[in-house]
């Protein structure tokens, strides 16, 4: 039998690694190399098909009517004027969805964990922009016009918009207002340190703001089912939930994944796709729907705004004695994954540090604000900002260098987290810190007075060198990989070899994270063939689970590897038997099978003798357990760490901040595709810098204030810093596939804290809220 460790006998991992050498380089091949992503060129050329490019003969256009209020009772819905409009083919409301268990129309509630979010509002509206009705018409303008003609009579209700008021407010939903309360208690509550620092921290609402707004096409099937073409990142989950909401068997719904135009979170918006399917079933015609940018901001989930109160006790040397915290996440109107985000926030509330006494209370609550959900490092990001700010405060109080205080407390492999879970994976926290701290600092304007210096405020801006102060800040953070607290993690993949090429069939969606490229590299490494085709994804394939929580490299990569190894065995076994040697003595490279002594050399195509070889395998990491009522338990499969040093220039009169440079050291286990990792780190830093300085989806009384790309400020190239990789630390995680750790979330988690630390250093101001507004950085 082959086992994953046989990968060591495969072609060396460092083949064709692009380390700056120029000249004729062989085509990058296999793990450890950096082949170009297959979708890179089509995307750059604008010929990559996204869901909004879909077309079907005779299609209708869908449009949604959304609630203009954050909290209201629906007294009546009159669709007659809309239906009377020429060209309108169907109008649907909650009454057109299957009835609930008690026979009433409840809008077919759904949710990834708790089914509390209706597809179309039934009786009550709980957030601004909640879908109330939908229309299918011959022309998109007719559909929008008809939606506007639907008359909804509302009785306005007092919105609960302050999460702190949610505890005492009347219930906004039959499930109540508390999504979860998670206490964490470990050690001696009476312990006291020689120095105590306190802080109150606030994190705003970041939106995933995907480049492409939600779009899709639903096509009715002759068997009464429906086929959905969507940029889903969880095809099976989406299929199952869509079927459930429509009262169909799952096999009556087929989900075909189209190009994903950006996903740093879940892309699935169930209300959108169920409504689309419902309209197609109603009219018996294909229906297409593309949301406007404004609707997109209204419909998908955002990052959890957070309020965090911290008290750190330390001894005179700066070692942590006790951490007390209260963490409040605003989950918005519906539960989504708030409970899971809260688990991460609580478990990582102290950060990558050792502390014997930890007392935390964390809550995720319901409000009438936009629903919050999954977004790179949900929960972990908010606490990282708070605990790193606290460490900076301690460093100032004790006169310690910010790097030194972190070194003194750094977590290491074998240490325990406050949840009682021992960190068994590599935890190279000190090495990461040392790596960023020893990188040379970027030049100052005085070093290079002739250079065209980009001042805060940008080119042609109002920046004045005399008022610019430079600040340097450090931060370290942690984030878990894969589902937590007992969630079943599994993925399935099929690998086929025929002729001189291989095919991978795996329903793991490449949401832009690069999984398709990685799958190709894995098969190249295992089977020695360079041509690897990755099949498009649909829900008829075996389940691979969502593209979230940094799981596909591990679970789907693991499944691909196993399937490829099984194929390899099938291929080599007869040859080995023929030559009377063991399979281990044969290797495959460049499409050729060779024996250890070089005697045998046979092209793969010849060995196949015209046959096709198939194998299907699953990967299921070791199980985890839920956190108990004291916040204790082995809740996480593995954890990734990252350290950053941010350098900022602040115009202390205008409060303009420019992030000059972010230097990153990351614990990656093994760099399977170095360039892709660097891309992920740059993306994470850009998103983190966006949250730190610009991105804030604001609400006023529950109403969205800036649902547009003019109002919601995403970082542009000029706002994003130079990102330098000080180190990709490759200490193998023995339980992970290839020993590799997920790379996308950690940089997004740490960057906001690092930028805040740097602004603090430049201005001497406390910087307690993100994004940092201009007035929070004015110190002159």
């Amino acid at each position: 039998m082959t086992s994953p460790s046989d990968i060591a006998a495969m072609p060396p991992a460092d083949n064709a690694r692009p380390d700056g050498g120029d000249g004729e380089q062989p085509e990058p091949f296999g793990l450890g190399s950096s082949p170009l992503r297959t979708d890179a060129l089509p995307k750059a050329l604008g010929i990559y098909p996204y869901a909004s490019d879909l077309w079907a003969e005779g299609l209708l256009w869908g449009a949604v009517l959304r609630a203009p209020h954050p909290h209201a009772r629906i007294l009546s819905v009159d669709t007659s004027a809309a239906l009377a409009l020429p060209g309108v083919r169907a109008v649907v409301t909650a009454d057109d969805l299957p009835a609930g268990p008690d026979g009433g129309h409840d809008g077919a509630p759904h949710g990834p964990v708790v089914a509390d979010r209706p597809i179309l509002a039934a009786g009550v509206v709980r957030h601004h922009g909640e879908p109330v009705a939908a229309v299918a018409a011959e022309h998109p303008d007719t559909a929008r016009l008809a939606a506007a003609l639907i008359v909804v009579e509302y009785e306005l209700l007092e919105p609960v918009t302050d999460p702190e008021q949610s505890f005492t407010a009347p219930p906004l939903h039959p499930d109540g207002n508390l999504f979860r309360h998670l206490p964490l208690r470990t050690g001696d509550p009476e312990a006291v340190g020689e120095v105590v620092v306190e802080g109150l921290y606030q994190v705003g609402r970041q939106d995933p703001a995907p480049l492409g707004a939600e779009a899709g096409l639903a096509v009715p099937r002759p068997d009464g089912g429906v086929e959905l073409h969507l940029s889903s990142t969880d095809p099976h989950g989406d299929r199952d939930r869509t079927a459930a909401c429509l009262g169909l068997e799952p096999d009556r719904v087929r989900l075909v994944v189209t190009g994903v135009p950006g996903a740093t979170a879940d892309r699935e918006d169930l209300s959108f796709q169920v409504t689309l399917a419902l309209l197609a079933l109603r009219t018996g015609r294909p229906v297409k729907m593309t949301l406007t940018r404004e609707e997109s901001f209204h419909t998908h989930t955002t990052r959890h705004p957070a309020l965090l109160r911290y008290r750190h006790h330390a001894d005179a040397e700066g070692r942590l004695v006790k951490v007390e915290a209260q963490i409040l996440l605003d989950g918005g109107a519906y539960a989504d994954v708030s409970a899971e985000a809260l688990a991460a926030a609580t478990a990582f509330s102290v950060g990558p540090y050792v502390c014997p006494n930890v007392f935390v209370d964390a809550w995720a609550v319901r409000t009438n604000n936009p629903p919050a959900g999954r977004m790179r490092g949900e929960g972990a990001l908010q606490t990282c900002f708070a605990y790193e700010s606290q460490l900076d405060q301690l460093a100032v109080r004790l006169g310690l260098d910010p790097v030194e205080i972190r070194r003194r407390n750094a977590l290491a492999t074998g240490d325990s987290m406050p949840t009682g879970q021992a960190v068994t994976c590599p935890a190279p926290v000190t090495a990461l810190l040392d790596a960023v701290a020893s990188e040379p600092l970027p030049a100052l304007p005085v070093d290079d007075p002739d250079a065209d210096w980009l001042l805060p405020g940008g080119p042609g801006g109002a920046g004045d060198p005399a008022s610019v102060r430079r600040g340097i800040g450090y931060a370290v953070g942690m984030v878990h990989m894969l589902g937590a607290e007992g969630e079943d993690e599994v993925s399935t993949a099929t690998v086929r070899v025929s002729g001189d090429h291989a095919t991978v069939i795996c329903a793991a969606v490449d949401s832009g994270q690069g999984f398709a490229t990685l799958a190709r590299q894995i098969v190249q490494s295992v089977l020695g063939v360079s041509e690897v085709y990755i099949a498009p994804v649909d829900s008829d394939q075996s389940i691979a689970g969502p593209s979230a929580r940094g799981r596909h490299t591990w679970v789907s990569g693991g499944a691909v590897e196993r399937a490829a190894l099984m194929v390899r065995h099938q291929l080599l076994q007869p040859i080995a038997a023929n030559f009377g040697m063991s399979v281990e003595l044969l290797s495959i490279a460049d499409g050729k099978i060779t024996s250890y002594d070089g005697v045998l050399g046979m092209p793969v195509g010849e060995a196949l003798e015209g046959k096709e070889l198939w194998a299907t395998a699953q990967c299921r990491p070791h199980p985890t357990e839920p956190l108990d009522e004291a916040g204790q338990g082995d809740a996480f499969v593995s954890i990734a760490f990252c350290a950053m040093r941010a350098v900022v220039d602040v115009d202390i009169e205008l409060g303009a901040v420019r992030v000059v440079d972010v230097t990153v050291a990351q614990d990656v286990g093994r760099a399977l595709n170095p360039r892709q990792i660097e891309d992920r780190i740059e993306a994470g830093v850009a998103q983190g810098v966006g949250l730190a300085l610009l991105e804030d989806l604001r609400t006023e009384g529950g109403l969205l204030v800036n649902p547009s790309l003019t109002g919601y400020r995403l970082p542009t190239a000029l706002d994003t810093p130079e990102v330098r990789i000080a180190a990709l630390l490759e200490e193998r995680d023995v339980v992970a596939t290839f020993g590799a750790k997920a790379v996308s979330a950690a940089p997004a988690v740490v960057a906001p804290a690092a930028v805040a630390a740097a602004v603090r250093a430049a201005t001497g101001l406390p910087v307690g809220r993100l994004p940092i507004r201009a007035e929070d950085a004015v110190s002159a």
Partner: protein
Amino acid sequence: MLPASLDEAVEALAATPAAVPVAGATDLMEAVNAGRLRPAALIGLGRITELRGWRYEDGGTAVLGAGLTHARMDRPDFAALIPALADAARTAGPPQVRNVGTLGGNIATAAPAGDTLPVLAALEATATLARPGATREVPVSHLLTGLDPLRPGELLTWVRVPLLHAPQVFLKATGRSGPARATASVAVVLDPARRAVRCAVGAVAPVPLRPLEAETWVASCIDWDGSREIDPAATAAFGEYVAAACVPDSYAAEGPWEAVTEGPTAAAVRLRRTVSVLARRALGRALK
């Protein structure tokens, strides 16, 4: 419709009053895409080459075509003529937008954060409005305030700007390093012939504001005959003066997403601070 000459365009507009002129379409298409505008017909101005350049008149005036793009105004030859307008054009959005967005479009849109507007106000520019067989000349500030607005069927053809041959500065505060609309902007121009300083503040009100008293006061602090020196304390006082004049105590940030949670006074204090810094820096640079 794509008229090839100014006369054709003016005729076309008169013949189809419901038609809307379009230059770079950077504002217009935004309104169309958002469903705020459904023009019955469009008259494209892009082919009218005469409107894409400028000429001189009476030695002391530049006559700028409404079709001048921001990118063109940012070029060194133009910047040498009217530096503050070039400064404003340089920061009026990302390159793709500045390559097609025009001076005429910026004026006709009359957005509070339109970057050329405070400069035109400080320069006391006038605009030529054309109908078939007739033109009239209107101060740009009257157009903006609605005192004498663009009438249906009228085309904005030229903008007259005095050539002052002296330093002028436009500065804009935004919340970021990348291209963005101004949260506040200040234009300061020196008019040595008249021994005057003219200043306008943009983005803090629906139209650019002129702090006339502050202008007069600061002009009296400058040594016009010598090296145009000024006491730094006077520059700082000018900043405060301008800010107090242009930002009322009751200022509430009604811009849709600016500081919605703060009370009006705090917003006024913050905005005054920004305007004051901008005005001080702008005057400082102009007198350097």
